[in-house]
């Protein structure tokens, strides 16, 4: 703060601080607090607001635990978000390694530009593009049948298949960048030292590169997982008849049932349970990674 004042003077510093505070408070903290408060109150007709029935209660949260269907959807959401995270990691790690350590820096820059261009298109359009690509008469089936890999079109948009494909596509860069950064920061001499001491490529990755990239891998995984679990656009656009995402239920409560109270209770449950799940998994993986590494 003092540094800020020294650099920009008192008035500009105050304006900057005030704007940041406004953004945090007015646009993030307060709306969330309001929703949080909502989640403990009941959805009542207007004339009963403030009346004897308007009390703080955990009923909205209890609704979730008493609904096996919702619990089921929640677990499927977690399951498929994890699957998307794993697929992203599997695809991204080798790519990040090649970008960071194999390609020449000039080639890397071009490659990143190519990767970033699709981000200029909105998420809805990109999801919808996948809807077209994956449809029965779509280009993917046309190509696959064309080159004779399959003899009749595959129904891609069924179950969670299309949602998983769409989510991988939507969030893979959130995995790529942290891992790329982590590997990029590794001194190439370390990789060479490992090889020079006789380590195979696989061993070098396992013992030298992955341990170094672990923070990047972890943050990539957490980001992708949380984005997937909280995604609305992709699961609704690419949904099939039997793929429901937890966010869709929240949306139903809020915009179809107009019950913002249960809706926000579900939203906070999703947040809390995801954080719990992520920290559990991180804990388990940490222990195991260290164990195996020894």
């Amino acid at each position, binding site marked *: 703060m003092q540094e800020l004042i020294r650099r920009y003077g008192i008035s500009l510093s105050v304006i900057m601080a005030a704007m940041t505070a406004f953004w945090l408070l007015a646009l993030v903290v307060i709306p969330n607090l309001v929703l949080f408060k909502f989640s403990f109150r009941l959805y009542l007709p207007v004339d009963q607001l403030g009346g004897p029935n308007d009390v703080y209660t955990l009923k909205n949260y209890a609704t979730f635990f008493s609904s096996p269907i919702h619990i089921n959807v929640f677990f499927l959401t977690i399951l498929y978000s994890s699957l998307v995270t794993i697929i992203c990691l599997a695809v991204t790690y080798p790519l990040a390694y090649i970008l960071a350590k194999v390609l020449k820096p000039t080639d890397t820059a071009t490659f990143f530009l190519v990767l970033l261009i699709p981000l200029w298109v909105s998420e809805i359009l990109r999801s919808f593009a996948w809807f077209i690509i994956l449809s029965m008469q779509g280009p993917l089936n046309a190509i696959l049948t064309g080159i004779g890999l399959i003899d009749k079109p595959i129904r891609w948009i069924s179950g969670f298949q299309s949602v998983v494909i769409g989510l991988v596509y939507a969030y893979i860069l959130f995995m790529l960048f942290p891992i790329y950064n982590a590997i990029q920061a590794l*001194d190439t*001499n*370390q990789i*060479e*030292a*490992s*090889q*020079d*001491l*006789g*380590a*195979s490529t696989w*061993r070098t990755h396992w*013992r*030298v590169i992955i*341990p*170094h990239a672990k923070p990047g891998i972890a943050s990539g995984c957490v980001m992708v997982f949380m984005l997937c679990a909280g995604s609305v656009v992709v699961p609704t656009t690419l949904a099939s008849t039997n793929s429901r995402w937890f966010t869709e239920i929240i949306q139903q409560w809020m915009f179809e049932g107009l019950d913002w109270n249960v809706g926000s209770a579900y939203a906070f449950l999703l947040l809390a349970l995801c954080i719990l799940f992520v920290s559990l998994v991180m804990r388990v993986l940490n222990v195991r990674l260290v164990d195996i590494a020894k």
Partner: protein
Amino acid sequence: MSEDVHLSQICMDFGSFRAVNNVEVTIKPGEFFSFLGPSGCGKTTILRLISGFMEPTQGAVKIGGKDMKGIRPNARPTALIFQNLALFPLMPVWENITFGLEVRGVSKETRRAKAEELLQLVDLHDSADKRISQLSGGQKQRVAIARALAVEPKVMLLDEPLSALDLKLRQHMRAELRAIQKRTGVTFIYITHDQGEALAMSDRVGVMSQGILQQVATPQEIYNNPVNGFVASFVGENNVINGKVASVNGGMAQFETAKGSFHAKLGASVGLGDQAKLFVRPEFCSLQPASETKANSIAVEVTEIAFEGNFVNVFVRDNSGDTHMVQVQNDPSLPPPAPHTACQMVFNPESCMILSEAATSRHGH
């Protein structure tokens, strides 16, 4: 335990730039061999060619008579100590040291024992479980050496490993490295741009310039009989005088210059009538009274005196304004002439050489 390394006519091109040019040398088993040269002359490139991180554009690297072409770094009998050491910061010291054994499937108990043994060898006790970040520069150095020794390499490659250390530690580690090399008998190939280091540690030195190996010889030979002007001026100090070879008589020649005619040893690649340079080391010069003119002398005036402790550097200027340096022992009973004294700088024909410039194209051995 150790093997010879034969670099057979190797060239290394980066695009159109030739970083290593036709280097031919055989390093004997158990030898301490240094490549000495200025920054960018291709020293690191040579090490990377030997360790297998690069393949030469031409020629072959042979270790123990075996052509290394196509053999990857992890399968070569070499161990490289990097310029920045490249220790693994996430592993404790002992795992660093035995990493090479771990990848060979050696059990944990054996590895641990081996680590202790190597830590003894490099004089680092009780550090097995420390983290790398807890070590001092010199200690990291020793861990790097131990890590390389653990895989029992036939050839140890060292890329300026002491350059990051302060002077005192560097001198200590020089002796240490030399002792470890003698104890283990492993062939050491050492890279440095520090001539003192190369001369003090090596059995033989290869002096490089612009990718070309200029001379391979013992430290004494390099210093006393440099093959060309580059080697002479890169290793040690010199007074240099331009001129022309006037007559040749056996190994000696008469050298005509603007400062007079001098009798001197004739260098390898210089012949009658050639333009060349006369190299005279400051410690082989002496200052005599101006009165009687001697052979091989230049009339000079003392300009400055620099006292260095055990010796004194006397700077003198000749009639054409060029400065020379004369090094004399510090002897209180025989002080050097005071500034502005006119005298003669005299040198023995046996201790000065007529040499050509550095070799810049292919040359045979």
